């Protein structure tokens, strides 16, 4: 479904991604780990289409489409979802209006009629249950005054509503206590099917106890330097990243 070839990207003239290659197939869970500053969040931003980054080389194919040529909103419609490390607070825009706009724009993209008010509310209710999101939050402004855990649950709630084919979870575990982590990971697992795929970006192995990866990649200095199975994550947890840094820097 996703085929990244030799991806290079800059921000403010500084090269962050220096040739990423990655293939993701339906049903797979990929974990991307790596030390701070290795380019993990940049990769997720570039895949979602953040205009702050410039792609200088490489291709990204998503179900036969040139993903890099699509606007962020069209990437979303095509089924790419990014769960933000730091979900943005939008004062004055209510969750309800935000979700209604998101759903109806997607339906418009596929030439479907907007959801009726009843259908919309029913959908919200169903999806909220997946991450135990409080109904009260629905009447508030997007993420405004949400706790860290509520923000992350809100991300997974949006993911549940939009039913993406590829979900990228950027440091979804950061700032979560153990209960919130279990709820968020539980939500992700409930949404897992053989037709969709997940890229989990994380600094720690902890999240991978809950969301089991099929592949673990280590990103360092803008490149994937190591790929393995779940056991690689455990090895990293035990030994840290220094041995990889040394191996790479020695080259």
């Amino acid at each position: 479904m996703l085929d990244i070839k030799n991806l290079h990207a800059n921000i403010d003239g500084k090269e962050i991604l220096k040739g990423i290659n990655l293939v993701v197939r339906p049903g797979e869970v990929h974990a991307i780990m790596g030390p701070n500053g290795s380019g993990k969040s940049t990769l997720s931003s570039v895949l979602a289409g953040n205009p702050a980054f410039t792609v200088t080389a490489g291709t990204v194919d998503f179900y036969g489409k040139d993903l890099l040529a699509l606007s962020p909103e069209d990437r979303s419609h095509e089924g790419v979802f990014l769960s933000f490390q730091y979900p943005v607070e939008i004062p004055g825009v209510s969750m309800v209006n935000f979700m209604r706009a998101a759903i109806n724009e997607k339906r418009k993209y596929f030439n479907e009629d907007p959801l009726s008010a009843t259908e919309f509310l029913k959908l919200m209710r169903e999806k909220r249950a997946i991450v135990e999101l409080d109904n009260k939050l629905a009447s508030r402004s997007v993420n405004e005054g949400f706790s860290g855990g509520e923000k992350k649950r809100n991300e997974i709630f949006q993911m549940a509503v939009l039913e993406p084919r590829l979900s990228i979870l950027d440091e979804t575990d950061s700032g979560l206590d153990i209960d919130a982590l279990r709820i968020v990971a539980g939500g992700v697992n409930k949404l897992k099917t053989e037709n969709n795929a997940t890229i989990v970006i994380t600094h720690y192995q902890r999240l991978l106890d809950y969301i089991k990866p099929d592949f673990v990649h280590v990103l360092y200095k803008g490149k994937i330097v190591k790929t393995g199975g779940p056991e690689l994550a455990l090895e990293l947890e035990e030994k840290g990243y220094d041995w990889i840094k040394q191996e790479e820097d020695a080259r």
Partner: protein
Amino acid sequence: MKQYIDFYNSQRSTIEANSATILNKLRKEALDVVSSSQLPKIGGENYEITDLNSIFSPDYGINAKRIDMPVDAALAFRCDVPNMSTWLYFLFNDTFHAGKASGIQLPEGVIIDSLNKVANEQPKLVEKFYGKTATIKNPQVALNTLLAQDGIFIYIPDNTILERPIQLVNILNSQVPLMVNRRLLIAVGDNVQAKLLICDHTQNTSLNYLNNQVIEVSVGRNSTFDLYDLEESSNRTSRVSSLFASQDEGSNLLINSITLLNGITRNDFAIEVNGTNCETHLNGMAIANEQQHIDNHTFISHNTSRCTSNELFKYILDNEAKGAFTGRILVKQGADKIEAYQSNKNLIASDKAKMHTKPQLEIYNDDVKCSHGATIGQLDQNALFYMRTRGISEKEASMLLMQAFMNDIINSVRMDALSDRLKHLVEKRLSGELTLCGDCGAKCPKQ
């Protein structure tokens, strides 16, 4: 100004013959001011972006003879607010018309009528208020006083509660370029609760108009008065509006000035808080694009103790629009325990739009709480990107953010039906769908 002096001198007998004595009485003083002063130059202290000379220099027609214009079609124009029934009145240019009888009588003693008519019938009553809160020092106010022949007089006696709002629909409509010198005289007694919604519109929009209006509001003791002033005119309309208000002890005045569609607008607000324990809320919203121009110049004078004022103005400027805000607050010596808060926030949506903002606080006292803040910025790029990743198009996301930006102004409206309506109008305006006839449910006359 010379053209206006010449016009007055040649038309004096016509003007005076068609106006009440009370209105004529002030013309001599007005003529002295107009003759001895000049319109302020652009770039000066209080007129940094607004050029009154170019606003007043074109040759406009003035209907001194009070020729009746065909009004039927124009008065079919309604500015409906769903779920809100009002006592409805019109100023067609500066001529008063009552709307269709609403079925419910105004409470006893309330007068809402033609200023000129009441000035003829009850000169003593009108004389108590006419020209009393307005200072004639400003050339534009003097000019209005020199040429004013009619407008509206609203008199709400003591201990009156108006259960529904008064709505005044002002319409500019002419077959030649027209200057109108409207006069709105509003006298609110003690222990009154009332609301007034003013909607400014322009018809026959291919012509140039100049509306040089003066609004005088006096609010009595322990009264609560709301004034909503909504401009949806045309890009060939110039509006120079000078509002003067005075507040007696314990009164609560809310003014909300909304500019949704306009050409060149200069609004002056001067509020004299004369009594203790008053509350003053002065809010404004402006949305402008193309080459529209909006200049709000505000002055709140705290003359006595224990009063609160809140001031909030927000602008969204796109294309080559220009905006200005001046917020002058004066706390006089001896006026202690004043709380005065002011904020002006602006969104600039293009490289060429310009905003000028200027807080001016003059405080001659120790025991006060005052704050002011001004920001000029763009839409939050992080919020935009976040919304786009959820499939919301850039255009729609910008709209949602701009609407959200205006939320606190809309929420400050103390009439639910009107704030719902405003929400809708702002949405229409931002999506470019708001046109004169667009949404008012009105059948405008063919243009």
